[in-house]
């Protein structure tokens, strides 16, 4: 990489690729190469989107999904961070629990969705519990990884200078592990969002995911695409915000 110019170039190619995809879609839509019920033209979707933004339905469903994401993420973060810290601090704990948690995470946890529905019902509670469960794994695994892999030299030098347990945590373990932990939070948030939308689509009556499925089943594809676009925009905003957060907590000089 040579600095600014290649950075701009990469960004231009990224935007260009997305624009090209839209142009292709527009071309197919305007020429009616594919039935509009299967694939509505982007302009029709855009006007649906504008109309939708003026109704309260969108915001009601957005609010449900957002609330599920926030609560699910907070539960996952609280459990993942605290458990990850206590496991990661002990070498033995890491040796025992890290492979176990990584193994469970490799199972497609979505197979347990019916159990979540039985326990928590078809409303938002089951989505929160399911999203929290999925988001928990990357958070706990990265917290274990971050805490257990803090360079021994930093711990030794802090101990030699008289650091007590609290100072060791605040001044050494936390700042050293933070970049890895924040990456875990980012992955957890994205996976939590995915699993919440997904579980809404499989079994839900409220939220953006359930709307997309309902509109699809009703052949109202233009409005469905408007919802899909909305979810995409939301995901872009979420990802941008999270990567800014990640950059803020990066250690200076890392990944140069």
């Amino acid at each position: 990489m040579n600095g600014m110019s290649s950075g701009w170039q990469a960004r231009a190619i990224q935007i260009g690729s997305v624009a090209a995809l839209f142009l292709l879609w527009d071309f197919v839509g305007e020429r009616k190469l594919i039935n509009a019920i299967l694939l509505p033209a982007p302009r029709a979707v855009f006007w649906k989107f504008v109309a939708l933004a003026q109704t309260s339905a969108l915001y009601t469903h957005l609010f449900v999904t957002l609330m599920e994401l926030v609560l699910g993420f907070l539960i996952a973060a609280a459990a993942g961070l605290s458990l990850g810290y206590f496991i990661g601090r002990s070498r033995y704990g890491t040796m025992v629990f890290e492979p176990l948690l990584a193994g469970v995470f490799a199972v497609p946890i979505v197979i347990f969705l019916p159990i979540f529905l039985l326990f928590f019902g078809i409303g938002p509670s089951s989505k929160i519990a399911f999203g929290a469960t999925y988001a928990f794994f990357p958070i706990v695994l990265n917290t274990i990884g971050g805490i257990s892999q803090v360079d021994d030299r930093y711990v030794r030098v802090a101990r030699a200078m008289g650091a007590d347990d609290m100072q060791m945590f605040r001044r050494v373990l936390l700042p050293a592990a933070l970049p890895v932990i924040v990456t875990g939070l980012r992955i957890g948030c994205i996976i939590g969002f995915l699993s919440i939308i997904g579980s809404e689509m499989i079994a839900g009556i409220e939220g953006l995911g359930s709307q997309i499925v309902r509109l699809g089943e009703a052949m109202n594809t233009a409005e469905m695409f408007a919802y899909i676009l909305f979810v995409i925009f939301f995901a872009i905003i979420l990802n941008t915000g999270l990567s800014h957060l990640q950059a803020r907590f990066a250690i200076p000089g890392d990944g140069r």
Partner: protein
Amino acid sequence: MSPTTQMESALAGQDAAITVENVSHSFVSRDGAIVQTLDNVSLDIRRGELLCLIGPSGCGKSTLLNIIGGLLQAGSGQVKVNGRPITGPSPRELSFVFQDNTLFPWSTILDNVKVALEFQGVPESERQGRAEEALEAVGLTEFRNHYPHQLSGGMKQRASLARALSLKTDIVLMDEPFAALDEQTRIYLGEELSILLAKSNKTIILVTHSLAEAVFLADRIVVMTARPASIKAVIDVKEDHPREPEFMASGRFADYRNDLYALLRAEIEKTIGGFVGSAAARDRTRRGICQPAGDAP
């Protein structure tokens, strides 16, 4: 208490900043074998002297330093600092300079020094002033807001030195502080250190594998044997501080270094074996051709 014992204890307290008494140490290696690193080491470190520990690679000199600093537990024997047995880190009496990369990469140079003062328990109001003073002493004032990765290896070690000096302990333990640096930087930092320490009257233990560094800096050089390490010899370097670069070019310097190498040679051979013990090598040594390899501070 009788007058004699009173006088004895007073003398002991005055003479020795650190007393190492019959210290042995061993550890269990990965394959379960017990490896002995230190064998019955006894040593007095006088107040205000710079003592170098030198020995073949991996002999246990860093282990000894870590035991003295309370970072490792001796298997048997004990270490006393200012007459009191060491049981753990004592940051008010001892500070450390380690080999490299022990500055926290997430903090600026200034914050690295300040956090050391926080660890030692210095009140917050004093930290800024003392940190700036220490950075001034090593000439890093204008780099105080840089992060470690923005500094050269030599500057990082100067920052580590500033961090140790800011703690204002009477004793500083240095574990191969210049080992990761190139030869020119090492010579230069060695000179700087000599000047800095001549003023400070601190007690210093410096672990090194550089013959020239030991001769240039030390008041006394402790030569250690191959593992398990014991003390082979102690050499007095009778030369005033601060030492001038010219000392390095003098005949006295060469003599000290040759004496040191002669003492170390058998230990190095024990450690690495191989062709050093071959007939040809023995022959060269006998004829006096074998010069100590170039090794500057």
